[in-house]
């Protein structure tokens, strides 16, 4: 069979990845620089029998996908900064009610209306801490068009398995960048769909033991009647004020991350075996870091790249090990230090940490990262 090779934008690859993953419902509101995802879904979903709806705002966008997902859909929305801000309350609802869905944020410059057509990586902390209350967060961040496709598939798989919203943290640079990618053949990438309950409706508990990660849960209209609420609830989904039940629920949410870090984390490393200088970067910025490291290596500098594709949960242990190993860590990002803050939090060894930041709407260039690498070797 001939290979299916296409020239695609990151946003287009994201929409195609969603369809590959079995997405059959999209609800959203137009916003630059994410709109291509909605447009592609509007075109392609009905061909596959799925449904697209343009809602009246981003709050309704996430609300309608949560409703569809509660009724059994594999659902997604896509937005950018201002819309992501509006979605925060219902992102928390999705975590509390344990409803799987994928939320794509194609990051642009902020705050406020900011830079609609220019990229940034400054929603990293919002993705983790934007909604109120303690809650689990999974956020994936692609650095290429191909990764945009594959991590969208992974986001759906994780949403289904972990029963929660999963954030795909794209940025405008990757979202609008065009590059070649080979389309995965049907069946090539693993797809996960959550199991349905096998017990009788009378025995069914919507938040029963073992259903938090990888377990069965029912959809509305499947013959299992249950209650879903954003109020803190017991295993049947009914509101509770009992401290033992509150503790149970909050620990259940916490365990989704704390009990499964190894499964969730993915850190790509290049030239790290003998590296004395590590560049820590992700998403769009990592492409420049990658180029800078190749150039540094060509001039004999022992530099390497550490690039997480899962940014939340944060790869604490992997990072601590690298901080112990290298002399210097350069943190390259398109924000005023959101990534840097996490590195400093984990830098128990007091390794030298050098920030390289840009937040003027332009892409961090390979030269800027290379200059920082050369500077620390002096």
């Amino acid at each position, binding site marked *: 069979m001939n290979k299916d090779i296409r020239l695609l934008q990151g946003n287009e690859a994201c929409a195609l990845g969603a369809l590959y993953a079995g997405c*059959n*419902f999209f*609800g959203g509101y137009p916003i630059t620089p994410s709109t291509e995802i909605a447009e592609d879904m509007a075109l392609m979903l*009905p*061909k596959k*029998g799925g*449904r697209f*709806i343009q*809602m*009246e*705002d981003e*709050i*309704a966008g996430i*609300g*309608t*996908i*949560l*409703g*569809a*997902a*509660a*009724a*059994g*859909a594999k*659902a997604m929305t896509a937005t950018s900064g201002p819309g992501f801000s509006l979605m925060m*309350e*219902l992102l928390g*609802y999705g975590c509390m009610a344990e409803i799987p869905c994928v939320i794509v944020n194609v990051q642009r410059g902020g705050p406020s209306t900011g830079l609609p057509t220019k990229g940034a990586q400054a929603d990293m902390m919002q993705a983790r801490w934007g909604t109120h209350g303690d809650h689990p967060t999974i956020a994936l961040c692609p650095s290429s068009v191909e990764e945009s496709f594959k991590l969208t598939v992974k986001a759906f798989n994780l949403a289904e398995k972990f029963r929660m919203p999963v954030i795909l943290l794209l940025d405008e640079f990757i979202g609008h960048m065009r590059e070649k990618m080979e389309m995965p053949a049907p069946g090539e990438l693993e797809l996960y769909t959550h199991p349905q309950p096998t017990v009788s409706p009378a025995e069914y508990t919507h938040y029963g033991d073992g259903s938090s990660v990888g377990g069965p849960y029912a959809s*509305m*209209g499947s*013959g299992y*009647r*249950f*209650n*879903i*609420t*954003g*109020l803190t609830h017991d295993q*049947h989904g*009914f*509101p509770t004020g009992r401290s033992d039940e509150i503790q149970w629920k909050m620990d259940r949410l916490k365990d989704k991350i704390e009990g499964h870090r190894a499964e969730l984390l993915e850190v790509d490393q290049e030239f790290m075996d003998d590296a004395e200088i590590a560049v820590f970067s992700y998403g769009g910025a990592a492409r420049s870091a990658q180029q800078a490291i190749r150039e540094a290596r060509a001039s004999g500098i022992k530099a390497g790249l550490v690039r997480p594709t899962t940014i939340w949960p944060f790869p604490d242990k992997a990072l601590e090990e690298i901080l112990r190993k290298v002399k210097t860590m350069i943190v390259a990002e398109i924000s005023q230090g959101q990534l840097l803050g996490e590195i400093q939090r984990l830098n128990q060894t007091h390794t030298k940490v050098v920030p390289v930041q840009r937040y003027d709407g332009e892409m961090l260039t390979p030269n800027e990262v290379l200059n920082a690498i050369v500077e620390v070797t002096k």
Partner: protein
Amino acid sequence: MRMHPSYEMLRPGKKFPHVWCPGCGHGIVQGAIIRAVQKLGWSRDEMVMVSGIGCSSRMPVYVDFNSLHTAHGRAIAFATGVKLHNPKLHVIVITGDGDALAIGGNHFIHACRRNADLTVILMNNNIYGMTGGQYSPTTPIGKRASTAPYGTAERDFDPCALAQAAGAAFTARGVAYNALELEKLIETALTKKGFSLVEAISPCPTLYGRLNKEGSAVKMLQWQKANTINIKAAEKLPMDQVSGKIVTGIFHDVETIPYTEIYDRIIRKAQGK
């Protein structure tokens, strides 16, 4: 022992007593909804009750349907997703005057315009009850609330007129006092294709009643009895004799093709069928 007719549709073992105050009209509305569903012979498995936040929005916990208690103002957005993904389900939205018309006002008008196939039961008690009696978009001008100690300076919405103007297929109003009329209106709304609204005027003696010196729960229901007029009777009277009264009945009822059916056609078109 004879069971209460509503019993089979409730979650008695799990979630009673309810949160509603003595004299609240919401239980009467709940009874009317349950009887309407029973009359239609619909099974609990095909019913989805979606609500927002507030006193009325607590209803899904008590009723043994598929139940989805969402965030403040957002019930209609969630319900649209449920219905669009699985159009076979009967989706009822339970909401209040603050939930539907203030924080959820945008979703409300757009669901009317879109003609999403939902039945919205808007339980209007003219006040925010859950938070202790603040004025809502349906508190009449001059009436008192905890945030309007001198009377409100704002005009109120007519939810039925708003829904009709926004494109709803069916609008009706009933009062808690006349539970049988309310039940019939809800039954008609449930069978209606497209967006249907039933505004159920429900007394709040604990907050609205006390703050506005309307008397006991019984007195508030008696006031409803004395001041309610059906639209058919109202149409024959001069305006000044209708002014100040609650007009009940069906205001707007048109045949439409609901959103979900139009989208089904789009799917067929996209698939070249």
